């Protein structure tokens, strides 16, 4: 006997609901096995994770704060993904956003202080867009493979940011990091830890949803993503749209970077490459590139992270266990999406 994965004749709607549910239960069970193996109670661990993520107002706020950049990076890469353009360079674009706002805050002294924040955000956006535009242009002009270019450009961006906060832009006193931004130019907090970036992120969701599902441009992106030859034949320029989509994708990731820097670190320093850009890829994928679905996925992933952190305290479990559990939840969820379109089949061994 052996198992085979066979395509379903039709997409099943009930499966689309059932399968994530089953995957989720499977991941809980898998996690429980690992927890039991390390001699801790799964129930306690899961309740600790939930409390860590949503247990009180403060924890909930932190989960939201964590979800904001994740959501934005997910939205950003999602646009490129619609064109089957595999932008895995969100991390670098995010970092450029952080560099951009730091540049404005530190050197554009001629601006009145109240202008620093909005202009910093815009400059961060523009730099993120420009950084994403490079692989977009290379792909459009000479079909240079984007997975490689976007990935490599991440490391260039991170390295450059490091050079800036360690060397060129380092604060005169103290260790690593640029000088702190003036306090009036920080992103304000609206509910406890939650900063006003939340509104920007949510507005972006609505804007993108409208752009992608209601406009002619969204229609064209859909065509290109699903059949580029047909799109070209209908007069849609693939080159222009790849560059355009990448500019927007990069602008959003860049905005995520500048926003988060103005809200949390208030300076360019270590930790600017926190992996939001990479996690954004998972978000876009799990949300099926749908902007509204991205909100929920971003919260779930952020909750996994903030929740896992509390395992160390509540259960005295090593940090790595938190990561194992996060992975165990993600894996079946991602794998489960396969079974919405495929089914498992048992093939009996023929007698020979």
């Amino acid at each position, binding site marked *: 006997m052996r198992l085979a994965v066979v395509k379903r004749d039709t997409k099943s709607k009930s499966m689309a609901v059932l399968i994530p549910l089953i995957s989720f239960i499977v991941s809980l069970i898998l996690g429980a096995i690992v927890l039991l193996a390390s001699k801790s109670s799964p129930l306690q661990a899961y309740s600790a994770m939930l409390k860590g993520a949503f247990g009180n107002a403060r924890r909930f706020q932190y989960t939201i704060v964590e979800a904001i950049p994740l959501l934005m990076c997910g939205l950003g890469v999602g646009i490129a993904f619609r064109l089957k353009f595999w932008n895995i360079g969100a991390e670098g674009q995010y970092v450029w956003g952080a560099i951009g706002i730091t540049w404005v805050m530190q050197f554009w002294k001629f601006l009145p202080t109240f202008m620093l924040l909005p202009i910093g955000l815009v400059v961060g956006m523009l730099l993120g867009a420009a950084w994403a535009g490079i692989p977009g242009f290379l792909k459009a002009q000479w079909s240079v493979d984007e997975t490689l270019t976007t990935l490599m450009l991440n490391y260039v961006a991170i390295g450059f940011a490091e050079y800036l906060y360690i060397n060129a832009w380092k604060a005169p006193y103290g260790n690593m990091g640029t000088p702190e931004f003036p306090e009036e130019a920080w992103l304000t907090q609206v509910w406890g830890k939650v900063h006003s970036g939340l509104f920007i992120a949510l507005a972006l969701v609505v804007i993108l949803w409208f752009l992608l599902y209601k406009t002619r441009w969204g229609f064209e992106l859909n065509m290109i993503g699903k059949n580029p030859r047909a799109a070209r034949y209908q007069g849609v320029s693939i080159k222009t749209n790849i560059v355009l989509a990448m500019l927007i994708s990069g602008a959003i990731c860049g905005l995520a970077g500048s926003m988060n820097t103005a809200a949390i670190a208030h300076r360019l320093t270590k930790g600017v490459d926190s992996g939001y850009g990479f996690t954004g890829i998972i978000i876009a994928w799990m949300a099926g590139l749908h902007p509204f679905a991205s909100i929920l996925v971003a919260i*779930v992933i952020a*909750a996994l992270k*903030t929740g896992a952190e509390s395992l160390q*305290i509540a259960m005295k479990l090593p940090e790595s266990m938190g990561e194992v559990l996060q992975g165990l939840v993600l894996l079946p969820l991602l794998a489960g999406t396969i079974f919405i379109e495929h089914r498992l089949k048992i093939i009996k061994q023929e007698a020979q």
Partner: protein
Amino acid sequence: MKKLLVLLVLLLAITSLVFAQGVKEAAPKADEPFKVGIIYISSPGDMGYSYMHDQGTKAAEAYFGNKIEVIRMENVPENDSAARAMEQMVDAGCKIIFANSYNYQDYMLQVAKENPEVYFEHCSGYLDNPNMSNYFGRMYQMRYLSGMIAAKMSPTGKLGYIGAFNTPEVVRGLNGFALGARAVNPKATITVVWTNTWYDPSLERQGAVALLNQGIDVIAQHQDTTEPAKAAVERGKYAIGYNADFRDIIKDDHVLVSTMWNWGNYMIPSIESAMNGTWKSQSYWGGLEDDMIHLSPISPLVPKDFQAKVMAKQDEIAQGKWDVFWGELKDNTGVIRQKAGEKMADAKMLTMDWFVEGVIGTVK
């Protein structure tokens, strides 16, 4: 879309269950142990910086027994996670929280301001608050002594130093090492390579190899891995360890000596004062006199009489008769940075951004 809705509902259901359970949990009892939170930048298994801190934590645990309960968090990145970690510790009832890496300080200050009833101890930074101290040790004193040994044992007088980041702490340590070396061999040179890492075994090994290829025969370092030292020893060259006793780990006498921390000597009194309410905010910078730092046993390859000389210098420092940055200091471009007879103030040491004479390399 729909599947996510279901997920969310499920999550909410479980959340409510957990809350229900949470209500049952009683308020802390009176005779509960005093809770201490410790945040590490890496895992104590790294045999480096966090390992040495954990030795201090363990010393405290041994000292206080069941009067305290320690909550550790390791591998905490230097971003918002740090703030979250500290707040969770506050929520878990910690009365004093230690964090061991420089870039935690902004987040610690922020959490400290919001939680005035908890004491915060930040290692290696400069920020403070009525309920937040910073503390560090004068490791440069040990580096000076290790520099003496390195210069003594080097046939060529060409020494190498793997710099982590160009922070004042690293620059100061390197200068201490250079001054010690040139006190023994005035012609000695110290070549620097920067890795811009605290912990990256392969990169740090590459740095050492690059130096060794230039004919350098003693490698000192500021990172948390043993790789640079291993690279030197494998080629039959000498190495100076840091944090842990590398000679113990590598099992080779070519590791001449290691410069080590005694964090427990700060943590124990701090916790004690927090327990009895006498805790005070300070910027603490302890040296040999406080036993914050020490040298490992010196390798038998180093001549006995020279070992005695090193120990004599150590006594001189411990008794406060002399310190590393006393007297005339020239930087490596020939500019006189400090006149003869002057003693460098702590503030200057804490912002040091130049190299002394004999160092080949730049801070930027």
